[in-house]
């Protein structure tokens, strides 16, 4: 019985038929077979006596145990993230991560002066994840490909070797391959469909039933293969879809509103005094262009003005209400819809609405603060709606996410009573989920309704810490292709 060759083996013999022998590297390039598969084919042919092989000693790069453990994050990366989380600076004596300190200093990520360690701009960039760390990229590529030679600059490889993350190992490598007489014979015997074991099933073999009565060559089912690279939804999209489904099941209708908003809808309509600190630039992105957004609803303006002057006594300025900004919460969308459904003819109350959208906070960015987040807001407009109703709605909503919420008092300027929803996690303590309450009567009146309104706002990103086991919010929006493909399932 004639030995049936694997296509790779066949390709090797075909390549050698003309030249007799060929250097390994050239064969790799000409055949377009990756070096691992090619080595496998050569070893197979060698054991069949079809070829002979010249070897020489060569150098390979391999990860050490320490290198493997640093694949996810280097000590210096951990250090700058940690520094970022405490405002970018700390006492040198409090830094226990010595290796991290040495390398972060060497990389120019931080400065040590007067007993304090302070992040440089480069260090801040590093911590915010805007660039991938060269040492880690190279380490990863060595780990992924395990190839000969360096995949990055030599200096980086040298550094990795000095750090004992990578070892240079001397090994016997294949220098060149030559075909033998037996090999030539074997090649001449190879005929498609010649009655031997079948390698690859082809269109022809299927069409002419050439496979009938023949054996298929068996494969090694334990041979290593690469995992599939699926195209997937972004995890935030998955979470938003799950949340949307719950609200729809509970009979809520989805609404939306603009991201670029007037201060009126973001602040004034919600009873926030015009001199309130959160209206300062510290927390709010006011726009340089456009500067303002005109408001046409004169009736509303009159009532908002009188709500403010009555409660806060100060002159209320239209110019401040018309200032353009990026909304700081989706409660602006809720306010717009309280106004819309104040006296909408034909509406049947209670009206139940929710919205999902982006919000913006002018904050310094670190592992748990982003300038841009997603929020869900909800309202119910109706007669005599109570705190007990609100607790019922939010209990049902969180049950849909598999969370059993608790309720405690809290303060939000636009609701009274105010509620904070949280749940208890044995590892991390009480986790805040949502702010809620009964909308202040003044606001409902200013929006033109005598009905009562229940309202709540839910931050989405914080749920992700749990669902995906991530350590930094910025990971969510880095859109690293490998992470998008291989991230954990959100089980939603």
């Amino acid at each position, binding site marked *: 019985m004639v030995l049936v060759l694997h296509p790779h083996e066949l390709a090797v013999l075909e390549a050698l038929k003309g030249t007799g022998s060929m250097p390994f590297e050239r064969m790799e390039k000409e055949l377009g077979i990756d070096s691992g598969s090619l080595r496998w084919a050569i070893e197979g042919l060698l054991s069949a006596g079809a070829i002979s092989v010249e070897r020489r000693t060569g150098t390979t790069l391999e990860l050490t145990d320490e290198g493997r453990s640093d694949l996810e994050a280097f000590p210096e990366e951990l250090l700058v993230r940690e520094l970022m989380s405490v405002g970018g600076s700390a006492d040198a004596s409090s830094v226990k991560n010595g290796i991290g300190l040495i390398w972060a200093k060497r990389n120019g990520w931080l400065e040590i002066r007067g007993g304090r360690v302070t992040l440089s701009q480069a260090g801040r960039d590093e911590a915010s994840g805007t660039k991938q760390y060269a040492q880690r990229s190279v380490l990863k590529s060595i780990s992924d490909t395990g190839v000969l030679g360096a995949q990055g600059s030599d200096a980086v490889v040298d550094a990795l070797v000095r750090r004992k993350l990578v070892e240079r190992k001397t090994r016997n490598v294949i220098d060149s391959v030559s075909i033998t007489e037996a090999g030539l014979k074997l090649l001449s015997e190879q005929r498609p469909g010649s009655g031997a074991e079948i390698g690859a099933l082809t269109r022809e073999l299927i069409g002419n039933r050439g496979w009938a009565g023949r054996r298929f060559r068996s494969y090694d089912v334990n041979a290593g293969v690469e995992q599939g690279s699926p195209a997937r939804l972004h995890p935030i999209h998955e979470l938003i879809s799950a949340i949307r489904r719950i609200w729809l099941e509970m009979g809520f209708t989805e609404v939306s509103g603009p991201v670029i908003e007037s201060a009126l809808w973001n602040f004034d309509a919600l009873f926030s005094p015009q001199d309130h600190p959160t209206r300062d630039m510290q927390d709010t992105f006011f726009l340089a262009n456009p500067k303002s957004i005109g408001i046409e609803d004169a009736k509303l303006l009159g009532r908002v003005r009188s709500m403010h002057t009555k409660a806060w006594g100060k002159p209320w300025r239209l110019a401040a209400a018309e200032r353009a900004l990026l909304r700081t919460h989706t409660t602006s969308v809720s306010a717009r819809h309280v106004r819309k459904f104040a006296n909408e003819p034909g509406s049947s109350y209670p009206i139940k609405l929710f919205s999902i959208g982006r919000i913006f906070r002018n904050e310094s960015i670190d592992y748990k603060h982003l300038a841009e987040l997603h929020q869900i807001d909800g309202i119910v407009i109706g007669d005599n709606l109570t705190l007990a109703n609100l607790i019922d709605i939010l209990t049902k909503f969180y049950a849909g996410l598999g969370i059993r919420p608790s309720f405690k008092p809290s303060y939000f300027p636009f609701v009274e009573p105010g509620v904070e929803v949280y749940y208890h996690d044995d590892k991390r303590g009480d986790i805040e989920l949502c702010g809620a309450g009964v909308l202040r009567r003044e606001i409902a009146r200013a929006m033109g309704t005598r009905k009562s309104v229940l309202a709540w706002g839910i931050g989405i990103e914080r749920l992700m810490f749990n669902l995906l086991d991530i350590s930094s919010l910025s990971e969510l929006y880095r859109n690293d*292709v490998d992470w998008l493909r291989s991230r954990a399932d959100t089980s939603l």
Partner: protein
Amino acid sequence: MATTTFSLADLKAEGIGADALARLVPALGMEIEEMSGSDVTIDITPNRPDMLDFIGFVRAMHLFSGKRRSDAARYAVSGQAMHISVSDSVAKVRPYILGLVARGTNLRGDRLRYMINFTDKLADTYGRRRMKFSTGMYDLDQIKGPLSYAASRDGSFVPLESSTEMSFGEVLSEHPKGLAYGYTLKGGRGLVPFISDGDRVLAMVPIVNSSHARVTESTRNLFVDVTGTSMPAAVQAASLIACSLIDSGAVVSPCVSDYSSGPVASPLLDYRSVSVSLSRLRKTLGVAVDAGSAVSLASRMGYTAGARGTSFTVGVPPYRLDVLNDQDVIEDVAISLGYDKINPVPVVSASVGRPDAIGKLHDSVSLLMMGMGFSEAINQYLTNERECLDLMRRQADQASLVRVEHAKTENISMLRTSVLPCLVRDLGRSAHEKMPQRLFEVGSAFAISGGRAVESYRVAFLSEHSKADFSEAKGVVLRLLALIGARGLSVDRHNDGAFIEGRCAAASSAGKPIAVFGELHPEVLTNFGLEEPAAGGELILVEEREYQA
């Protein structure tokens, strides 16, 4: 939110142990931020500035736990009034001053520190960084002669934290407090308000006190001033501080500010009366509370309360600045009752939920793109001109950009005008990972048109691998156009710096351009760190998002 830190030993001495804190603080709607070693740090919500103070905090805890009863007669002034003469010169810079006198207070141990922290935080938050009001404390026994409040361009004194005499101008330009709070005097044409006894300056307000008459731990008798630009805020602050001093054991006497228009006395320690209907209480909370229970629940929150048929009336203590009307009292009754005592009650309705059209569009486009092997990216809308335009070899009219002011993060200056640059950046960061790499994103981009900000809704995609080319991009665009049902299609050669000239096209539907696609220019690839060829494009799904209401 403001935080305040107290010593656990001081609280223990008042009968408040760590267990009680852990139970009562959240029940009152606050949060323990940190309890470690000898201190506890508590997040105080902005509606309860009275609890920023150690004495006020202890008061609230004792009332809530039933250790102490609300008492209307407690907060009162007695004794002879002190006078401050107010010059008209302050009218344009910081017009209001109120005062009070406290005899027999105790500032030993941590008490002085607590008092200073409290008044500083009050002026920083409620006082809007000392603009609306700020307060100062003086050793009453060191004050000689009549007090006056005036404003002048010239003057000098030895301020706290300084060993030498400084002029008003030097304090504003050199002293740390002058640098921090000098801004409150802008618009006063160089006039500096100050308090003096006879010839001596006691304080330059609201900046820094003189080292003369400085308060120490052994001070027993105090004069306190509240100055500001808002009279109602100053009145509230004076009440709040007076209550705290009374609860510390001091006897508080009034102070009269003599304006040229007439005298104003302070502190006003009156209980405002608010009536709450029991049916309103039930309709807000969803639990029935009878008059007797409502009265005792309100008392635990510090109100004096009495039932009157179908309603009850509370007296709001002078240290509560947040109570506007019955809604605030109802919340306090709910807090006193405990939110865990409020059982859920379903809202009766038979409504059917409907999703927003844009969410459905996002889903169907995403499914199609995933089917073609593209993973979804979600990027931030905030970006900067370099990344969104320059590195993409694109230009835009400055007036068409939605720009933000004063971003705290350097690389934020505008909202993105296009989605594609975000994907190019994403793939640049993933350069070392396995090819092919394909990403798409569905989301908004922004521009100003006709003086208005316009939000368009788009899908962008990018494919990077050794064989990525124009045909791949065109194939994706054609499939997307079929999905959205675009009619009257034409494809024309197009110029866009981001793409290679001659390998870029625009697709139009009924004569209106809706998509641009092609092979990315090698300089763009290098700018973002992509090492392989890339092809991609962007398609407008909704030209302008319109929002109802």
